[in-house]
């Protein structure tokens, strides 16, 4: 399937494993935070890339020591109104220092892409049907941002007073 990553459409081969699904020996898979905490040792012994799925209720501190080891972290959006993922993505980038791919995954909408990009999300995977090519301009919907974010580290008041 296709996803948006770093501003372009790319093919994606990650498999998102349910907690009770058998573990394939190869290939790129993501697991939930629950499964990771329960099957950590087994998962570490497996070949292939491993990704972590984080939901709004997961305890980031419990996962913190392991984060750097994941090739992908998905932030789960069960619906567009559940905004916990915005804070989680930002904390992953700014507090926990995660430098890999952060992917918003779930039931969000085009009109949230710009905000998601600003809080550190660099890939977007929709679980409902979506015309991805048509959505790309939404990543650049605004040219002005007041706040500092993961995309622009300096708040507007500093840029403004610096005369730029």
């Amino acid at each position: 399937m296709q996803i948006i990553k770093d501003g372009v459409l790319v093919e994606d081969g990650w498999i998102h494993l349910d907690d009770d699904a058998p573990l394939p020996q190869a290939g790129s898979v993501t697991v939930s935070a629950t499964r990771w905490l329960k099957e950590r040792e087994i998962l570490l012994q497996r070949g292939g890339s491993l990704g972590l799925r984080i939901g709004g209720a997961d305890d980031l501190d419990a996962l913190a020591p392991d984060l750097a080891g994941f090739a992908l972290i998905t932030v789960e959006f069960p619906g567009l109104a559940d905004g916990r993922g915005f804070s989680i993505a930002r904390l992953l980038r700014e507090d926990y220092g995660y430098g890999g791919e952060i992917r918003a995954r779930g039931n969000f909408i085009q009109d949230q892409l710009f905000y998601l990009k600003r809080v550190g999300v660099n890939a977007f995977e929709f679980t409902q049907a979506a015309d991805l090519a048509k959505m790309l301009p939404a990543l650049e919907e605004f040219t002005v941002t007041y706040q500092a974010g993961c995309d622009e580290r300096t708040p507007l008041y500093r840029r403004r007073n610096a005369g730029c």
Partner: protein
Amino acid sequence: MHTGMYQYDHFDQTLVNERVAQFRDQTRRFLAGELSEDEFRPLRLMNGLYIQRFAPMLRVAIPYGLLSSKQLRMLAHIARTYDRNYGHFTTRQNIQYNWPELARVPDILQDLATVQMHAIQTSGNCIRNVTSDHLAGVTPDEIEDPRPWCEIIRQWSTLHPEFAFLPRKFKIAVSGAARDRAATQVHDVGLHLVRNEQGEVGFEVLVGGGLGRTPILGQVVRPFLEKRHLLSYLEAILRVYNRFGRRDNKYRARIKILVREDTLERFRALVEKEWLRIRDGLLLDQAEIDRVAAFFAPPTYESLTVEQIAVPEKLALSDPAFFAWYRHNSVAHKQAGYRAVFLSLKPQGVAPGDLSGEQMDAVADLADRFSLGLVRVTHTQNLLLADVRKDRLPELWRELKALNLATPNVGKVTDMICCPGLDFCSLANAAAIPVALDIAQRFEDLDYLHDLGEVRVNLSGCMNGCGHHTVGHIGILGVDKHGEEWYQLTLGGSSSNDAALGERLGPSLAKGDVADAVVTLLQTYVDLREEEESFLDTLRRAGIEPFRERLYANH
């Protein structure tokens, strides 16, 4: 040039223009069937657009209640062009239009953008328009003008990428005076400018206040916050709320519930921990504080002669009608020779807070002639001209009388706060406006009205409490009983420094009995009061019982 209010630069203007373009496209996609109702809802709400009983309702932001005459003329233009020639001012210092057409809302927003206005975040589960003291900058009891801080918060909260999909709405109010005129204790966050023991000015931060189904007063989460840390502290509060606020039940989703269920101590610990982590990266520069504050610097006031200053007092001796207006609808100004003047939007027979397009234009002209071209909206749904020379008050009074904006009732029984109620709102259980008009009629006698002194009567058409009934000295809440409109009365609420939630008086009353009940309650006060005692003081001294007994004696 002195403007007295914040002026957009190209950054601010570009952002608002881009927002208009974004909403135009969202509306187009919705009308074309590309966005579902569920997907469009949060997007339109974040631009202040509700779908109401009869038509969409558009809520336009008036940041901290401050308007230029040019902006007010644009609001008049919108009322005439897109609506039924009136607008409704709200308790959060905004204006609502009740009859716009969905397809034309992008055009309204475009018109607003030409005068540096918008409807961003006037609704939805995001940080709402920040509100403040309508006497900011002119009141003698002020520690510091709160408006620069409101503007700094406005910019920080506008399109904040992390906090656009909160568990529920989030309201911030800022007060800089000794007397709280911004109802800060019933906001999600209330900020008070205070002076500490070292003489430095900073913020006392309250959190977890709110009205609605579960009214709660805010609690002090931090007694003193240095100004430069304002945004980092707000960001820490919002992040904790966004992560841990309840999302399973919209009636339990406000921050007040999180603070109550989690306890203030634990909530504070979470906030302070997050704040320590981020605060050095989010320091406010003095240069920015100064840049914003300069817009609100006091104007160069004129020096009046003793004779000029004495003009209103002199006329008052011979004209009791002027005296009543002067005494009740104008208040002291920090500058000698000036007064701040209320325009009452509560004359007999008019829905509280409503103003016609012609009145808006006329008020804009009066603002230019009498008050440095600025108008303010109060949280009690009136307007204010903040900087009027005393010698010009008689002339202004005559102009206002001709516009039906000089009813001398500010702060009195008939100066009611009232939500749109069942006549407009799809949430309401009962009418509010007709009940308010009915009550007002019983107090047409101005001498009696003035004798009753300061009484705050607040009406809401449902328990969501947009009419602030819980903090009315007399609160009136419309409820639905088997398809009929009934009204629950409360006594003793207040949203000022002595904030309190009203106590329920007894069984609810039929619609036709509410006005009589208010008459009875106030007659009880007159009978009980000692000397100059106010309604609220009498109630607090004598207790609710005598009022209850008198009201229900015949029921």
